[in-house]
């Protein structure tokens, strides 16, 4: 390992140790706070996509909230969903792996719904004898589509973990 990498590793180790021993953010680790954070995350996701459909600009407000919720979710579960294996003990690893399976299933559901919607759209166009499919999207609407997929990918692992931990 190069000296630069060693330094980075030592810094990361220090950060993880601080995070694992942290008690100042314990208010985000109560059952109620955890459930509220997950629900808030879902609401911000829906709000971001909805607002961007109507406006190119105002969607950034719920989007910023999404990122704030994402950071709080990570703090709530001490970043277990994102840390490299070597920083987790066996229970945390097991939990993390189960979380990713559930998150994958959920994101699979979201993607499937969108794919199905696209298929239904093309079928309806065929039924109406439309010669070629057209998607007239504004910049905001493209953003809505992008964030529709990107936010769950960002939030889901920590959100699923937070929800599971809240039930314990």
């Amino acid at each position, binding site marked *: 390992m190069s000296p630069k990498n060693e330094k980075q590793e030592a810094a990361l180790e220090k950060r993880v140790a601080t995070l694992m021993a942290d008690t100042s953010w314990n208010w985000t680790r109560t059952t109620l706070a955890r459930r509220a954070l997950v629900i808030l995350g879902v609401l911000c996701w829906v709000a971001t996509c909805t607002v961007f459909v109507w406006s190119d600009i105002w969607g950034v407000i719920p989007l910023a909230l999404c990122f704030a919720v994402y950071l709080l979710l990570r703090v709530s579960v001490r970043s277990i969903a994102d840390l490299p294996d070597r920083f987790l*003990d066996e*229970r945390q690893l097991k939990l993390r792996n189960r979380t990713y399976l559930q998150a994958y299933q959920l994101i699979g559901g979201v993607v499937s719904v969108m794919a199905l919607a696209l298929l239904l759209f093309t079928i309806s166009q065929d039924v109406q004898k439309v010669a070629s499919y057209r998607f007239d999207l504004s910049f905001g609407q493209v953003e809505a589509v992008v964030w529709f997929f990107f936010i769950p990918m960002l939030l889901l692992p920590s959100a699923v973990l937070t929800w599971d931990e809240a039930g314990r």
Partner: protein
Amino acid sequence: MGRKPATEEDLILNHIEDNRTRLGWSRQELADRVGVHYQTMGYLERGEYSPSLVLALRLAQALGVTIEQLFSLKEETNHESKE
């Protein structure tokens, strides 16, 4: 449809807390000795998580007892398996 099968955690009885308090250690202290997070120690003591064989052996070693003194199958489970 039968009964819901018992999880590993339902089948195992552990004496981690008894042994830890006997030695006057905190959860954090024992967690540090066996290399897990203190929260994980809470899950272990409450029987909400079954450790791997390696962790079980580490716990027994740290507490100065045998693995059989630390973990056992619950009585009712033994009866069920005999039936």
